């Protein structure tokens, strides 16, 4: 009897010790803290979204006599899946979203990876310049590509000034060329190919070309090597760019709206937007679930493929060399194609947008119509309701400051959280805790920006537990940007942490360094360099962020992007373009500074 009790007591003590040891491990503590943070910024909003789709809202009293606000109902689900609006609110937008996103992914990856191959592996002239220019389309707001398209191919259908095509050839372009599927896919591909370009060129440049050379020695033809050796090796990079491009294209709002609505080509994202602004959020949330479902299945399929392929990939870490494939006769034509690509994806939209800022009357591109009023005008004139030019306009300067502050805070906080996520996930590899952290941190990627913003608005306008009402604070806007960008920084954190051998940390642990010391002196300096790309990506993304924050900004916290949207809506193309130019300048400056900092030894 006594023995038994003793054993039980001993087991309890042992269990307690195990728990204590478990909790002593730093990555466990970090994981638990992260889990707590993720609970608030990811899980609660997600659960709220599910809950909201099952209850009556106040506005529903306009749609149904049975509506009792706050009570349970299946009304919204039935309305979307089986009512007379199902076809136009769900099925057709769903098909349009899927087909355009798929089209965009295919074209963007085709353009991006070919360009990557040309830049990293061939003797194409001006490769450095091409590599730098190929990232720029992503910096230019995507709706600029859409507006440029309209200026070129607008036909008689929507009236107004004829597009350049009609002006030059005297024929009105057909609808399929002017609006809908084709132009959306074309312009978005031009906007998104940098993803594939960056990822594939990274893969290609870290790949040992001896693999290809051995193929050559064995007598394989150029195209055979490309198909059977090079291509399989970059497949993981291509699949990652597929996920990024596909999910982004699925959630984009501006381009489909500009190019789709003249022919009633609606997508899920435009439907989500209009339902949320009409305060029928439940419909928006359910449609958002559809987006989440699609992205999740794409990612799932993708992981299956990568999982199978993993054994193929033999990227040598050290002592590799790269050889250059001469292009021979194809050099000139290929170079011409690349130059053309840069002209239509970067130069033309940039010229158009700058030109727009200089027109006195919108849509009149003649030389006599040029002015700098919208940049440095003193205001008080009849133009633009008497507002001053953007460089003199206090509210725009304040918005610029807000944008920069927001982008910096978001990229620093989510960047560091990303490093912690990387540490927790890599150290706790394959434990349930670390898998949960990894998966949860990826969840925000699947929720479209506008829906994520709407969730935060409805959640954080009231006090929950110890958290005061956050509506109207800068903190809330920053929080949503941090949460939405965790997937990027988390990925970056994990990859860079994987590159750090654990022996470094173990060595210092043996020599008695505490965890905080190890983290500050070893892990942080080693990982920050790799995580820097995540920082920059977040900075750029937040600088250009619109749909995520448009519902959350208050007059005091408004950013440059929310101002462009307003001006665009009201038809002040000049102001909205001028602000876009300002955003592009800030983004390029930010990237330049961070590159300089990155070169100076990777430290902060």
């Amino acid at each position, binding site marked *: 009897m006594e023995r038994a009790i003793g054993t039980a007591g001993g087991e309890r003590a042992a269990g307690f010790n195990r728990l204590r040891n478990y909790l002593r491990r730093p990555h466990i503590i970090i994981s638990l803290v992260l889990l707590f943070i993720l609970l608030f910024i990811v899980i609660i909003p997600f659960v709220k979204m599910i809950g909201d789709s099952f209850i009556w809202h106040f506005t529903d009293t*306009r749609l149904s006599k049975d509506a009792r606000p706050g009570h349970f109902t299946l009304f919204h689900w039935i309305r979307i899946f089986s009512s007379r609006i199902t076809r136009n609110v769900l099925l057709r937008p769903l098909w349009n979203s899927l087909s355009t996103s798929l089209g965009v992914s295919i074209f963007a990856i085709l353009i991006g990876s070919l360009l990557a191959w040309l830049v990293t592996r061939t003797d194409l002239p001006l490769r450095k310049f091409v590599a730098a220019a190929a990232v720029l389309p992503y910096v230019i707001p995507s709706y600029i590509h859409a507006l440029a398209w309209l200026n070129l191919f607008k036909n008689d259908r929507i*009236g107004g000034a004829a597009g350049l095509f009609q002006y030059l050839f005297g024929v009105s372009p057909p609808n399929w060329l002017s609006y809908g599927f084709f132009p959306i896919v074309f312009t978005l591909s031009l906007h998104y190919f940098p993803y594939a370009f960056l990822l594939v060129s990274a893969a290609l440049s870290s790949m040992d070309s001896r693999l290809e050379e051995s193929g050559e020695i064995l007598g394989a033809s150029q195209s055979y090597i490309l198909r059977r050796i090079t291509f399989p090796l970059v497949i993981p990079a291509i699949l990652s760019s597929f996920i990024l491009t596909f999910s982004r294209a699925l959630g984009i709002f501006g381009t489909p709206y500009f190019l789709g609505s003249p022919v009633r080509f609606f997508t899920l994202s435009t439907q989500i937007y209009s339902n949320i602004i009409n305060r029928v959020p439940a419909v928006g949330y359910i449609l958002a679930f559809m987006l989440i479902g699609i992205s999740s299945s794409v990612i799932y399929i993708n992981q299956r493929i990568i999982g199978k392929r993993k054994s193929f990939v033999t990227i040598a870490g050290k002592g590799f060399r790269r050889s250059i494939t001469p292009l021979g006769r194809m050099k000139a034509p290929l170079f011409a194609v690349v130059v053309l690509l840069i002209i239509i994806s970067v130069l033309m939209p940039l010229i158009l947008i700058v030109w727009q800022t200089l027109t006195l009357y919108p849509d009149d591109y003649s030389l006599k119509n040029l002015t700098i009023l919208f940049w440095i005008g003193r205001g008080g004139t009849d133009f633009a309701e008497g507002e001053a030019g953007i460089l003199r306009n206090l509210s725009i300067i304040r918005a610029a400051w807000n944008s920069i502050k927001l982008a910096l805070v978001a990229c620093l906080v989510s960047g560091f959280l990303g490093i912690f996520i990387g540490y927790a996930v890599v150290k706790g590899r394959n434990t349930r805790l670390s898998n949960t952290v990894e998966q949860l941190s990826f969840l925000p990627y699947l929720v479209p920006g506008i829906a994520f913003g709407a969730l935060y608005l409805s959640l954080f306008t009231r006090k929950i537990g110890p958290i005061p009402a956050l509506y109207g604070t800068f903190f809330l806007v920053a929080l949503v940007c941090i949460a939405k960008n965790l997937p990027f920084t988390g990925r970056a954190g994990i990859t860079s942490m994987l590159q750090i051998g654990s022996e470094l940390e173990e060595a210092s642990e043996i020599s008695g360094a505490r965890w905080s010391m190890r983290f500050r002196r070893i892990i942080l300096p080693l990982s920050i360099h790799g995580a820097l790309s995540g920082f920059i990506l977040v900075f750029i993304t937040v600088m250009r962020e619109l749909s995520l924050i448009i519902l959350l900004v208050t007059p005091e916290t408004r950013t440059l992007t929310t101002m462009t949207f307003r001006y665009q809506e009201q038809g002040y193309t000049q102001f909205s373009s001028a602000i876009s130019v300002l955003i592009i300048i800030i983004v390029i400056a930010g990237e330049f500074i961070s590159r300089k900092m990155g070169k100076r030894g990777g430290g902060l």
Partner: protein
Amino acid sequence: MKNFISFLLVLSLLLLISLAAWAGGQEERAALSPETDAWLKSAGLGEYTEDFDEAALYEAGKKEGEVNIYSYSSRVFKFGPTFEEKYPGIKVNGFDIDSPELVTKVLAEQEAQNYVADVIFLKDPSTVIHELYDRNLVFGYVPSDIKGVILKGFQKPLLVHHTSMDVLIYNDEKMSAPPINSLWDLTKDEWRGRFIFPDPQKLSEFIEVLAAVVEHSKEMEAEYKRVFGEKIKLSPGVENAGYEWVLRILNNDVIIMGSTNDVAKAVGLSDQADPPVGWTAFSRLRDKTKNPNLKFTVMYDIEPVMGVSTDVIMAIVNQARHPNAAKLLIRWMMGDSKGGTGYAPYYVLGNFSVRDDVTPVKGSRKLSDLNYWASDPVYVWENGLKILEFWLANLK
């Protein structure tokens, strides 16, 4: 698998908790809470409203120092500065926010008890009345000195600042006379793909336009008979002639645009071979002074109506921290009998003052001489979303 099931269990548990937390919800129009009543008393609003006393309000307003106004229109940056000139010591912080977003924000501020807005100035009266006024989240204020000159029907429940109208326009450079004279003309084959209508999913005032057409289905029916010489045959499942008109313009390949400004440009830009007609805001006429390439004008003689009017309203927000400055600002915005002072930015073609002592803008007709339907907030509230649903269901 086991993991997945436990994940689902946790999720459904969380769901239940959240549902329980929300059950209860809001009910019909609430009685005044003690806090609201106390605030009304201190602010001198509701039943505590006193006569308009400019000097006293200015004194009290100076102590408040500023006033925040959320405005659907960017012209807030015009009457704001003139107010500051007239009443030094009170700063006007004008914020330019779209109407639907504005309501969302006021609701959020009330819930967060973070009271930023003092005055709201916006369209979409049906939403404002039902979502804000009925829940005691905003209150009306009519300065007593102009009560007598403001037309009846524009003072309650909330004061109307001006009435704006959405009308049909055509390109008068290309066409010497209005190309149509009936709303039903737009359903004819010659206007297939040549008629532009703003997206009602995006712009609530065009839900009001559609609602007015449906509400006046009897007149639409009579007008059909006048145009086509026979009684209208409704399509299967369509309730009345108003809905039938909506269905037929959709079937006639109506072009949908995202803003009234785009419609004005599409119809009005000069040098067009075959310009369309469109439905847009009357006040877009003022764009012509900003852009000489715009050549369009309003079609006045359309049957049964040339357009649908909607009210732009002003209210003071519950718990506003600058109520005296707010009252003074509202009075300033109502202007004088010449359409001057704070009203000046709105004394333009296409806006109609609710003061019967103000002479119409040069080149404009008097509101009472125009053939239009006034949007009915109660009808729009009860039917607007259903009509939008009909629109959505029948988009081709």
